[in-house]
């Protein structure tokens, strides 16, 4: 091995070691979490207000033109009329799931109780789906922060389905020409000045539409009250003049889910039952995209490292091929 070759190999080994070795934890490799957009729109879902009527599910299906869904094992019980999808899917953009325990006596109780939870896109502040999509088919609006999907760009690789920590984007496996389905916060209705269908039809204000910072304040206000206090729960859009729904403040879990989870989301959850029991995963404050993009940007910054490596490889390959010119 001649000197220059050895120097190159040592250099390359050093560069690799330097890039990865001093990292005791993975923290140092992360880029910063992204920030909440200036006019972020979102939803406050208060599980204690939800009565499980699923009006939001029906309204969503109508507004987004997705069909009624019936799992095979429920089809006989319910002949073709009621939607009975058990979770979001390629044809169900939102749904209400139920938690039960023991005798199921009291609502919003962890033991011997039951509770409802709504499933749909959380419109992450730093979304994995946007980060992983190779063809920019997942888009996050720079102003409102709403995450939309462009099927004309999508190649159907399903990395967004695999990567989303909430299991939100879903591919239509049963279609010849399937596409990715996800809640786009009724972007088409918002363009006409309306609000997302689920919030519009919710009779109790369990799904409440609004600006994320206003919704955050509203959530904190509810938490600041004493259980049993009477409270005027807004409905539809926060700040609108719709009649409110008066009820007693329940016993809330003190944590507002969605503020910091996976770098933060634009949905806020208030619940009576611990979040993980309701299928809301425990997630770190760092967004998942911050690590993968951090590593990727470290290795490929300005393509300097790959180009330097290519230069070295060309040099070495040239010397070897010259030496063995007659071998072929």
């Amino acid at each position, binding site marked *: *091995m001649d000197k220059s070759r050895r120097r190159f190999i040592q250099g390359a080994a050093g560069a*690799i070691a330097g890039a*990865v070795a001093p*990292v005791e934890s993975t923290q140092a*490799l992360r880029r910063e979490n992204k920030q909440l957009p200036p006019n972020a729109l979102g939803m406050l879902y208060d599980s204690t207000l939800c009565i499980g009527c699923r009006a939001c599910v029906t309204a969503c299906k109508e507004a987004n033109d997705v069909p009624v869904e019936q799992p095979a094992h429920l089809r006989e019980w319910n002949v073709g009329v009621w939607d009975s999808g058990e*979770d*979001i*899917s*390629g044809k169900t953009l939102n749904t209400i799931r139920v938690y039960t325990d023991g005798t199921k006596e009291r609502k919003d109780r962890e033991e011997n109780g039951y509770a409802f939870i709504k499933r749909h896109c959380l419109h992450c502040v730093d979304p994995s789906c946007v*980060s*992983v*999509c*190779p*063809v*920019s*088919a997942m888009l996050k609006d720079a102003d409102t922060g709403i995450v939309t999907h462009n*099927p004309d*760009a*999508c*190649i*159907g*690789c*399903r*990395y967004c*389905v*695999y*990567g989303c*920590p909430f*299991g939100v984007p879903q*591919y*239509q*496996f*049963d*279609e*010849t*020409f*399937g596409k990715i389905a996800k809640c786009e916060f009724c972007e088409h209705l918002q363009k006409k000045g309306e609000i997302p269908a689920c919030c519009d039809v919710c009779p109790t204000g369990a799904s409440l539409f609004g600006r994320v910072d206003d919704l955050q304040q509203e959530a904190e206000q509810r938490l600041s009250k004493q259980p049993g206090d009477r409270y005027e729960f807004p409905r539809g859009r926060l700040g609108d003049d719709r009649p409110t729904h008066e009820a007693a403040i329940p016993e809330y879990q003190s944590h507002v889910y969605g503020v910091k989870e*996976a770098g933060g989301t634009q949905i806020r959850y208030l619940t009576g039952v611990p979040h993980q029991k309701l299928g809301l*995963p*425990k997630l770190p404050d760092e967004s*998942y995209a911050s*690590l*993968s*993009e951090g*590593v*990727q940007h470290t290795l*490929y910054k300005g393509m300097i490292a*790959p180009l330097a*490596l*290519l230069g070295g*490889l*060309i040099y*070495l*390959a040239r*010397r*070897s*091929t010259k*030496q*063995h010119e007659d*071998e072929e």
Partner: protein
Amino acid sequence: MAQSTHQPLGGKLLTKPFMLFALLFLIAVYFLATRFMFGLGSVTHLNGGYPWGIWVVVDVIIGTAFGCGGFAMALLVYIFNKGEYHPLMRPALLGGLFGYTLGGMAVIFDLGRYWNFYNLLLPWYAQPSSVMFEVALCVMAYILVLWIEFSPTFLERLGLTNAKQKLKRFMYIIIALGVLLPTMHQSSLGSLLLVMGSQLSPLWFTAWLPLWFLLTAIAMGYGIVILESTLITNAFKLPSEQRILSKLSPIVGWLLAAFVVLRLIDLLAHGHVAPMFAADLNAFMFWLEILVFVMPTIILISPARRTDQRQMFLAALLLLAAGSLYRINAFLVAYDPGNGWSYFPSAPELMVTIGVIALEIMLYLVFVKKLPVLHGTRPA
């Protein structure tokens, strides 16, 4: 033995094993037709929790690692300038050519919206932060590079020595690209998992994923070279390459040993001891994987064992099994989407994967029989 030249093997093409592979391939074609008519769900067990199955993990991620023979040998022959391994270069490249070309083909039938595939090449859709974007472009470029690297074989066959000489003049650039591109995308196949966070078991999730995938891909590349050489020299009664192979094996053995030790150190350094000894599938698969990595490592490092052709063949098989198991574990076993989702491939899904492998072997046989790929000749 004088330096022999590359020669086509000749011989009958439509042998019995060939017909069997053809039958397996036809079965796959039937299920693929079903997939294109009625959608992915009509053939596979893919679901909302497990959107990636064996067509991604086996056909593409493991398939391209099996195709790393060309990459691993180029690294040795041209970058570390070990000319003595040159006879292994062409068959290794051929393996790479099919591993990658068919892996690329498998991507097409796995893509849910394959008719938009070309969007990957349209600059206004480009998303450079996506690991998938980098992998896709790198793999496409590498398939092209492999065909150029292999093209002297065609040119020789066609008697176009002039073109071959011209190509040779800038071949070193192609060779360099042929090392750079797999270094990038084989490591990036590991980076694909960096976004998974707690959805992956801590036994597999680490910031070192890209390096682990790169190291194991190179090791698998050598594994396939050993396997291929042993099978071909025996089947076609060619001069044995055992001498070169036993020289190659300690390199591979130490590479594997380094991987296993570094991986364990990383896990211990992050304090992931509890999941190692949990009574669950993850822990079981983890130790099985370590075991299957350690066995070939021992054979390849031990001077007594590595001169034995049978042991070497076993080591190559184990090494490929270990790398494959690592990939299946990382992408499917370690991954838990929650919500009670589960996945096990359907029979048709498996048949498609088997059919793709059958096609690969058929094409390999056609190429070595018709084109000057291998060294030496069959005794008359």
